[in-house]
């Protein structure tokens, strides 16, 4: 766990505020800003396919970020995240279709509605240990998905619900190239929000609850409040991401949001690194690119002996699920701190180069 934090010589931190800044060095901040600016050119540079991949990574990244608040910072697990994601999608579609509220406001509203529903499911388990929350969220997953397939007034039942394209002041942002900026804005804002949350009193309280909840309680942290809060936050980000997904796809259906999708979200968090904010994005990208890699491998092997023996092409979905599961297990056993830890090690190596020992 101990990551060697390398502070450049002569950089003394003289106040608590300086110690908790998001970017400890000016160079770091400049690079981050440069990165965001460079990504702004992505729609002009990337092909249609990779652009849509990036949008999806961004959307799932927001949902995974919510889950990381719960898993990484508060030490609770949820296996109902996909259901909350879908709830956000349906809510936003419902609000923008049935009421005059424009999509621009429907997205945050969907997040709030999802957070409230999340709180209802989180309440019974909030006073208990993580295990019970897992089981409560398992129930939430099944109950919500069942509700979506049943409630025709809300989700259209078996018919997929339609969602309007994103628009601000009658200016429609249709198509990947424009929608990319909407997702980018949401990603930047939510990652900044969570980073800021984690350096506030509430964020530290969440971490204290994770590390030793009895001590946390003795220090005056209200356990129920913070567990519920983190659950609500997780649901909130899932809802926002779901809403963004709805207005990206323009159609929302139950399909593909079973428990496997919830496990996929957990995979993103674990692979990225539990309790690492930037790691979440890395983990999301990793998980989303696994199918690409698998496809590439199966293309390479096409026609060969292995392909004929295993019928790779016909079973790509299963192979992907197996790969995701094995990767989760491998990360948990060999690299519990995830990609974020690896990234820090690589950075440290280059900082100390050529005296890396």
């Amino acid at each position, binding site marked *: 766990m101990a990551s060697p934090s390398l502070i450049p010589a002569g950089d003394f931190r003289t106040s608590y505020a300086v110690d908790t800044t998001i970017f400890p060095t000016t160079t770091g901040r400049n690079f981050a800003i440069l990165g965001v600016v460079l990504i702004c050119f992505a729609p002009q540079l990337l092909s249609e396919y990779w652009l849509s991949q990036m949008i999806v990574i961004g959307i799932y990244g927001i949902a995974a970020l919510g889950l990381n608040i719960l898993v990484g910072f508060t030490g609770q*697990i949820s296996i109902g995240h996909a259901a909350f994601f879908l709830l956000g999608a349906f809510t936003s579609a419902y609000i923008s279709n049935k009421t005059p509220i424009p999509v621009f406001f429907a997205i945050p509203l969907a997040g709030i509605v999802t957070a409230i529903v999340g709180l209802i499911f989180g309440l019974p388990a909030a006073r208990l240990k993580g*295990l019970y929350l897992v089981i409560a969220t398992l129930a939430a997953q099944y109950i919500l998905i069942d509700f979506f397939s049943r409630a025709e007034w809300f989700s259209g039942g078996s018919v997929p619900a339609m969602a309007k394209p994103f628009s601000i002041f009658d200016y429609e942002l249709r198509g990947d190239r424009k929608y990319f900026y909407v997702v980018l804005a949401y990603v930047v804002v939510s990652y900044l929000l969570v980073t800021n949350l984690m350096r506030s009193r509430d964020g530290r309280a969440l971490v204290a609850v994770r590390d030793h909840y009895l001590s946390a309680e003795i220090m005056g942290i209200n356990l129920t409040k913070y567990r519920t809060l983190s659950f609500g936050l997780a649901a909130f980000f899932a809802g926002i991401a779901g809403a963004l997904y709805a207005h990206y796809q323009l159609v929302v259906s139950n399909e593909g949001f079973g428990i496997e999708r919830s496990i996929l979200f957990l995979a993103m968090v674990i692979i990225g690194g539990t309790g690492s904010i930037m790691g979440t994005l890395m983990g999301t990208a990793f998980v989303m690119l696994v199918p690409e890699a698998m496809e590439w491998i199966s293309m390479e092997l096409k026609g060969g002996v292995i392909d004929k023996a295993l019928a790779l092409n016909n079973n790509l979905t299963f192979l992907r699920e*197996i790969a995701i*599961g*094995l990767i989760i*297990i491998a990360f948990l*056993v060999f690299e519990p701190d995830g990609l974020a830890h690896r990234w820090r090690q690589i950075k440290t190596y280059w900082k100390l180069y050529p005296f890396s020992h």
Partner: protein
Amino acid sequence: MNTQFLLQLLVNGLVVGTLYGVVAMSFVLIYKATQVVNFAQGELLLIGAWVCWTLLTKYQVPFWLGMPMTLVFMFAFGILVQVVILRPLIGEPIISVIMVTIALSAVFQAALKWIYGVNPQPFPRVFTSQSVTIGSLQIQTVYVMSLVVSVLMMLGMAWFFKVSKWGLAMRATAFNQQVAQSLGISVKTVFAMAWAISAMVSAVAGVVVAVVNGVSSGLSIYGIKVFPAVILGGLDSIGGAVVGGIIIGLLENFAQFVDSEYLHWGNLYEVAPFYVLIIILMIKPYGLFGTKDIERV
């Protein structure tokens, strides 16, 4: 009110409920002995059923030989999973352990779909299917067989824990690992044995379900239905698991009755246990027979 239909459903509920009870029992066995919440319990059921199916149809092994072979396989498989995957995680936070079992269930599920395809397969006829008429009820013999097997397994489990040396060692380990170790019990072996026995019991349940309904990946839903049952009974009570399983089975079928007679919502059968689960978590989180945790610092 349609009494005939209700009775029929309740008998169904009892049969399914005892099966839930058996699976819940094997779930609690792992939880009690090794503190691992096993999300892959349903997949153990599925693996057992598929292995038996393969032996019986692909290799034409007779049932009386195929079943013990399945059990031997599951015994080894349980030990393998424990030793290779869960042993390195001893001492890790509970989250990691839960995540590993969730990932395991995903891997097994996908691997089995890959090997056997997604279509359900009929199980070879082990018993000539007839129906027995009790009163006004028609009950299929497979159901009676399933009930008998389940009850036998429960009795076997009771004997195992009350009388046998291994069972006592397991209970001692569940009570306190250090004390058990100082009494000469190998905690490592007990952990492996808990997985092996749990896998075997699950496999028997899996084969029973397969004989009744055929083998398909839908079997693993038993692993999910286990959660309402064990939460109702109390996570660490084997007797509670059995009672919880039977109650959930009855309740499911009762929900179906209410649904088809009065409400007409459709599909209430599937989700009713989960509503119950949420309610139990709210009012009585340690279940009917579970021990309340008292934390000492």
